[in-house]
């Protein structure tokens, strides 16, 4: 069997076995093996990819030719999926409750690998569906309305994609990326010289719009993001590490594909503005809006799962901004941020999983002072928080910095502002998370909480480690990214990123940081003998901190913000969609009762009317 | 003499005339009586047609028709008086 197929199908097969076995421990082991195999193969294939080769595989199946390829780009995305997938699966070993979850989690992982390794539109679509279905089933188990929302939007997205693919296929006669690319390139060239193009302007707009919907839904782009907060929060949180960390990246990957396959054609058709393709603005500005909306809403959440769900949305916004801008640098920056988001958000959700696993609580108001009880988890959270907040020397800083530079270098101040705003609001919600969960007074029922179980700890460990490693040595990532474009867009060394207008040296910063920390530690230990005070025994302005005060940060902390935004919060796309759905259902009812009214004579009239139409049609 | 066409036409007219009662009624039995008469006349018409075409085989058709019509009329009549 071909190695690409092994990478793709190993998780699914493992999942089916785990599901069929349904024996505790065995199924966990099988599941982990299913996640390890693709990762191992990807690592094993690295030398080949590094040598600039692509691994191709073509299968004739169901009357179609399916193409698969492992390219530099897909290898990067697949690695991301492999790592985060493994971490998530490790987490699931602790938190998953049934073989059902193993089956569908691993099925969605297969979908993800399939998407990244497909080299034709149909395979891409099929694995897209597999992934969607698997993740949908994961949500379904936990929450009906969340899964329904996710499902409907996903199905709409998938069907949008199918139509776009179908239109392309109808003209090109093939699904293969190469042939599709060639056709579009030729078309673009023809269009330049005013020749007869394969696709009309309207068709190009339709294809672009359809793909925008398809990828936008999956990525959680505003205003198609409404499924994400619920879906991310209403499932196994270990799985969400993969869901938010990897699955949403398929949307990102889709946008990149869009650029690769038909970027020229779209540019030729719709032109550019300040050297950025006009269609790219749409993606970029939707990304910007996504950053702001996601960030603000994240700040307003009372539930940690929701907080990170919205945070995920917001972070994807960054990536879309970067990709939308469409320069070589910005695309690399986008992918870089995709990786770092996968790493830190995966880590976050595993942390959330651990907290929920140990405490059974999800809301700020029920938490506090956990740092003392769960030191390891807290350490992980510390890494994640720093990374997300974009504090050097963690990976989050490197990618955000790149995006900011890429946007600014394209002279796009508004987008730059949006990105900056996103970072600011990120601090806001992270502070709350930091304080409300880990510090302050601990509710008494959490006094017996234990730290993370081993599998979860390993999973978190892997991700935390990578957060640090890629932060200290950002060139590791940048080097791979450059290979996609084929030139050193991001210069520098392993430790240093150099993009001409600016430099970032992860190692240097780390060294300074370590020195700083050492100084702090020395001061701490050499300082006056401080009385050890339990975190719960806190005074403020000479008065004991009451539970009421303690709760302020945990409950409606950002109420003023909420009130300030009340006008905007009332505009809810969620509600709009709900209204549309309700209207559709009512319409369906009316139609059903009117058309199938039970009266045989009405039915006979239908026949007569068809006869009339036949007669009038002149058929 | 007068010619078979004329008889055919006249009998056909008689059939049509009895149709009047079929549509007019007013009671169901009126219609039934009319149908009965109509079938009787039609039987005669069919026999005459056999002669017109010179095909004796049509006489069988007329007899089958008479039998079925008789059965039908009796059935309706019995239905009307509650005899089914």
């Amino acid at each position, binding site marked *: 069997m071909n190695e690409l197929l092994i990478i793709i199908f190993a998780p699914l097969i493992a999942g089916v076995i785990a599901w069929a076995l349904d024996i505790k421990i065995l199924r966990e082991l099988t599941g982990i093996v299913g996640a390890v195999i693709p990762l191992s193969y990807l690592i094993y294939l690295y030398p080949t990819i590094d040598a600039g080769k692509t691994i191709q595989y073509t299968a004739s199946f169901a*009357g179609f030719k399916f193409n698969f390829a492992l390219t530099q780009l897909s290898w990067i995305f697949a690695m991301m999926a492999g790592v985060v997938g493994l971490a998530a699966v490790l987490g699931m070993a602790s938190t998953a409750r049934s073989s059902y979850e193993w089956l569908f989690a691993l099925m969605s992982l297969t979908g993800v690998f399939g998407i990244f390794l497909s080299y034709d539109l149909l395979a891409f679509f099929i694995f897209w569906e597999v992934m969607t*279905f698997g993740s949908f089933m994961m949500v379904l188990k936990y929450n009906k309305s969340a899964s*329904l929302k996710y*499902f409907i939007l996903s199905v709409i997205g998938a069907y949008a994609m199918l139509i776009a693919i179908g239109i392309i296929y*109808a003209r090109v006669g093939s699904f293969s990326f190469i042939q599709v690319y060639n056709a579009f390139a030729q078309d673009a060239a023809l269009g330049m010289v005013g020749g007869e193009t394969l696709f009309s302007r309207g068709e190009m707009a339709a294809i672009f719009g359809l793909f925008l919907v398809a990828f936008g839904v999956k990525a959680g782009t505003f205003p198609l993001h409404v499924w994400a907060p619920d879906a991310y929060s209403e499932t196994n949180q270990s799985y969400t590490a993969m869901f938010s960390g990897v699955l949403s990246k398929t949307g990102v990957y889709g946008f990149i594909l869009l650029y690769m396959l038909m970027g020229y054609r779209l540019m030729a058709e719709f032109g550019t503005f300040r050297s950025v393709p006009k269609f790219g603005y749409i993606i970029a500005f939707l990304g910007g809006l996504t950053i702001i909306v996601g960030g603000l809403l994240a700040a307003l959440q009372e539930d940690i799962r929701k907080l990170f769900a919205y945070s995920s949305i917001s972070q994807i916004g960054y990536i879309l901004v970067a990709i939308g801008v469409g320069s070589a640098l910005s695309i690399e920056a986008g992918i870089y941020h995709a990786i770092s988001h996968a790493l830190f958000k995966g880590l976050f959700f595993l942390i959330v999983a651990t907290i929920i696993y140990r405490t059974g609580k999800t809301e700020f108001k029920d938490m506090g002072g956990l740092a003392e009880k769960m030191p390891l988890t807290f350490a992980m959270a510390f890494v994640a928080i720093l990374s997300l907040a974009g504090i050097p020397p963690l990976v989050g800083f490197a990618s955000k910095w790149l995006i900011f530079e890429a946007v600014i270098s394209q002279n796009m101040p508004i987008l730059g502002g949006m990105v900056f705003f996103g970072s600011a609001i990120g601090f806001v919600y992270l502070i709350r998370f930091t304080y409300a969960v880990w510090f302050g007074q601990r509710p008494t029922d959490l006094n017996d909480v234990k730290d993370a179980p081993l599998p979860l700890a390993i999973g978190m460990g892997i991700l935390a480690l990578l957060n640090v490693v890629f932060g200290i040595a950002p060139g590791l990532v940048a080097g791979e990214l450059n290979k996609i474009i084929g030139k050193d867009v991001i210069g520098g060394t392993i430790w240093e990123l150099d993009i001409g207008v600016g430099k970032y040296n992860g190692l240097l910063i780390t060294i300074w940081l370590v020195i700083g920390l050492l100084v702090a530690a020395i001061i701490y230990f050499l300082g006056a003998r401080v009385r050890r005070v339990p975190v719960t025994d806190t005074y403020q302005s000479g008065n004991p901190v009451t539970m009421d005060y303690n709760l302020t940060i945990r409950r409606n902390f950002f109420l003023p913000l909420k009130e300030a935004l009340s006008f905007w919060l009332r505009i809810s796309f969620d509600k709009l969609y709900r209204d549309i759905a309700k209207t559709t*259902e009512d319409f*369906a009812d009316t139609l059903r009762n009117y058309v199938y009214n039970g009266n045989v004579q009405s039915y006979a009239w239908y026949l007569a009317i068809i006869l009339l*139409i036949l007669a009038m049609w002149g*058929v | 003499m007068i010619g078979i066409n004329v008889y055919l036409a006249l009998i056909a007219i008689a059939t049509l005339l009895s149709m009047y009662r079929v549509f007019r009624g007013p009671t169901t039995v009126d219609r039934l009586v009319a149908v009965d008469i109509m079938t009787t006349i039609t039987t005669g018409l069919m026999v005459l047609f056999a002669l017109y075409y010179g095909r004796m085989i049509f006489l069988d058709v007329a007899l089958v028709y008479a039998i079925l019509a008789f059965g039908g009329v009796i059935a309706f009549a019995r239905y009307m008086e509650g005899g089914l």
Partner: protein
Amino acid sequence: MNGQYAALLIAVPLISAFFVPLLKGAGKNAIKYFLIAVTALQTGIAALVFQQVYTTGQPIIVMAGGWKPPVGINLYFGHFAALFVLIVAVVSFLMAIFSLESIKVEPIDKYAMLFLLLMLGATGMIATGDIFNLFVFMEITAISAYALTAYNKTGEAAEASMKYIVLGGIGSSFFLIGVALIYGSLGTLNMAQIAQLAATMNPTVAQVGLALIIFGLAVEAEIFPLNAWAPDAYQAAPHPITAMFSAFVVKAGLYAMARIIYLMQDVGSWGSVLKLLVVLATLTVIVAELAALRQRDVKRMIAYSSIAQIGLIALAFALGTQSGVDAGVFHMVNHAIVKAMLFLAVGYVAMTLGGAEIENFKGLGRRMPLMAFAISVGAIATVGIPLFNIFWSKVRIILATLQVGYTWAAVLVLAASVVEAVYYFRLLHVIWFEGDGEKINENLAIGLMVLFLAALVVVIGIYPDYVWSLAQKAGNDIFNVASYIKNVPLMGVGA
């Protein structure tokens, strides 16, 4: 090998149906087992025919009475008929087994006869090579369907049957007018000869005749808005019969429609007939899906879903391209399997739990896990999730539709599919995540049947190549009229 034995496909169910009155004394179960035996035998013969046609690649032409067409009526077991007659037989066999458990209403002997004749009618409709004989077999199918629809003898059943009768009656009358026109113009009823001479027809006659024939068949093929009888009939009929309606009865009508459409492709107004059919087929999908959306009766909901799928097949056939027809045939096969399974499972649940209302399906995952599993597989397959059989045919239909340039139709059909996804989603949720209850012992035979069908769904979903190659050959059988004409040994009357 001489293929005349294929006439047994007609003779066996007939003679068996006639035999049932003699068996009446032997008791209800004897009749039910007899039914199983006959359908098994039919399956065997159909398998033989299938095997011969697909290995030799040559159709079997059964010449009734030894008369060569167009003098005599011939049956044409080409790739399509061979495949579908087998499906008819297999589904009948499964439903005969299901009847063992599910048919309690008397008189069983009459049920068995009507059951066999329903199977016979569909077989004949698929096999016949004569347009009037098609009418006869269509009526055999329809009238036994009328009777079986009302078989439960409830008010609803009678009502449903009456609707079916009235609409079916109008349809068949106009069908016959169409036949009369075509016969009047060409002097022949043989399909191959009609195809041969179609181009020479008076264009007005051809237009009106073709339109009327399509109209008549569209009632049986459940094309909107001629399908108003169908939800009622599906809901009211005994469960095995509903499965048969959906799995092959409607398909026989659909096939007949496709066959005649393609036979008449030399007729001037062909394109506009197809266009109209595309519109109606799309409407069929949309209206049926919307009607299913808030349906409380699961059997009726699946009935609407079935109609929608039929609309999809009709759309595929109306595209007028080889790829469309292939996709349509493929979808027919897949849909037959899935809907047989769904109606089997839903029927069994309804008879065990006392009704098909959605409330009865609460906690089904715990109460009847096998049936819940089957319904889930069926639902997921119908929605068109990869790794399940319908995905492949649905994608093919959409691609074929877009290839012809009916983007609007593809968009509308997919929009309707979103609706379909929603109601199946709700069903699944009710089954697995709502309610509770004690586990009920599920009937072994029925359990095995649904597992078999579910396995088919998944196997075809994972490995569609074989069935797809069958579908392609069968599709070619419909689409490639020149080879159809060539294969029928017309004796040159009137030439």
